[in-house]
């Protein structure tokens, strides 16, 4: 297997995705006494070329490791980062590759990649229930961590009106950043 440098990898993405490529970021840090390099790449892409980008990662290494999908509520949009690692198994050659997409809240949809990477199922299910991003074509649509009686349409990681603010229970004598409204005695029952 050919091991490319971060810059070469970025070039591959630029040529393969064309207009779907938005931006890139290469992070390097010297570590400990011998000052070996810690390297990470971030590729910002458009949703239309998402599956193409995942295919490209699978060409860089046959079985890339998908660590997790992280999602951030940025106000009008949700940012998803697919944290891949490639070139593992080679001493200090592994690269963290974050595939970053920005989805407007009016259209929170992303195609599944479980057909390419079967192990992505848990994290796709979690993104769906926690952030309210619909994963189209997901083979298992159930919730992962949230209990069955958790209200529909509430997403714990959201910072907008769909967040879990009404569900907070603050113990007497404790304070929390989000104030609990007076009339909601037992939010679970009310829902």
């Amino acid at each position, binding site marked *: 297997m050919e091991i490319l440098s971060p810059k070469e990898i970025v070039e591959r993405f630029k040529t393969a995705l064309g207009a779907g490529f938005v931006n890139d970021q290469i992070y390097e840090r010297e570590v400990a006494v011998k000052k*070996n390099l810690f390297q990470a790449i971030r590729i910002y892409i458009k949703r239309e070329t998402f599956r193409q980008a995942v295919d490209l990662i699978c060409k860089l290494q046959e079985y890339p490791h998908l660590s*997790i999908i992280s999602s951030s509520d940025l106000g009008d949009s949700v940012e998803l980062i697919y944290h891949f690692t490639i070139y593992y*198994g080679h001493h200090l050659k*592994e690269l*963290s590759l974050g595939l970053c997409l920005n989805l407007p809240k009016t259209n929170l949809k992303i195609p599944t990649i479980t057909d390419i990477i079967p192990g992505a199922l*848990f994290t796709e299910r979690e993104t769906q229930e926690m952030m309210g991003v619909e994963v189209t074509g997901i083979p298992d649509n159930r919730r992962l961590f949230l209990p069955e009686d958790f209200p529909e349409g509430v997403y714990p*990681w959201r910072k907008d009106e769909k967040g879990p603010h009404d569900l907070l229970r603050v113990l007497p004598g404790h304070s929390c950043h989000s104030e609990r409204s007076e009339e909601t005695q037992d939010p679970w029952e009310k829902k």
Partner: protein
Amino acid sequence: MKNEGVETTYTIPVGPIHPALKEPIRLDLKVDGEEIVDVDVIVGQVHRGIEWLGMNRNNPIQNIYLAERVCGICNICHPFAYVMAVEQAAGITPSERSEYIRVITAEMERIHSHLLWAGVAAHEIGFDSVFYLVWRVREEIMDLIEYVTGNRVTKAMFQIGGVRRDITEEQFPRIRKTLNYYKSIFDQLRAVFLDDRTIRMRTRNVGILKTEDALKLLACGPTGRASGVTKDVRQDQAYGAYADMDIKAITPDMLTGTIVGDVYDRIVVRLLEVKQSIEIIERCLEEMPPGAILVESKMAKVLNTLKKAEGEGVGRAEAPRGEVIHYVRLEAGRETLATWKIRAPTYVNLMSIPTILKGGQIADVPIAFASIDPCMSCTNRATVVDSKTKNKSLLTDSELHKLSVEKTRRLKAKFDSQ
């Protein structure tokens, strides 16, 4: 698995807490007589919303202690990954000496975690004398952890920019004493686990995960390495003092010459990793550079920097069970984290569970499930559906354990009569 009857049998099982497997989990097994046909894993019974607290209640320094409480065993690697992520986001470089102290504590954690697992594995197959022996042996490393960090479990060693306690020259003899103790008993441990015929009968060719499946299902840590995936963050990526050493991912063929990917191979990998951890600690003691343990000891100052910082960071560390990853996003002017995402190794290793259990027997479930060292309790309540009679029965942890013990006795009696 789509079986409505099973789904409605249980909602949230909260079972007895097992000393090693801390969190409840539900496994729905579909069986044909004794053979397991399909498995469904249902998690989330102990989701505590830790990430939410980090994003809404705690400041980034309070989060170190919260990260430590993600897991009762991995309470070094979670703060390790977390502080690395925050350091990257805020542009802080930890002191060189602290990188070595971090690694020493992380490797002590690996030794105690692997020994704890070995005891549990012995218990699962009904070999309780080995369970007592291994946990007695584990006390030595627990005493050392207490001596070095001041606490047996939550060690509170980590701080953004370094560590909170130094390891001094005077402490070295005490540390070496424990390491030498483990070296002296290593062959004995190896004989107990790898040469004993009862253990071999119960673990060889049980719970097989093939290399390709492990790669596709993203297995990591000893679970992946036992299947031949040479993935180890300590080897692959430069972090902490590991970057200065030539760490090599342990695979079972180093000892046995073959890779089967069964429970036995997972024992081999963990045993060899205990030895590797001892070597890493010894090297750290020899090569530890002098200097400060923290780049900034005034916490108010650090908090102020973090409040102004804007950026993202990803911290990855090799926990005893596999790769831990923390993603952190800081926004200027925000007291808490903007985003915090944690992934523990069991999160991905659980996806291998259906593959590991399928085709096996119910009596093999405890040991096969325990072999990924799940950071979750456990098979405390599994729903068993006999696909021939359509009868549903509920097995509790103790009943499953009984089945497993009976199988060991049966195999032993068969072997003795030959």
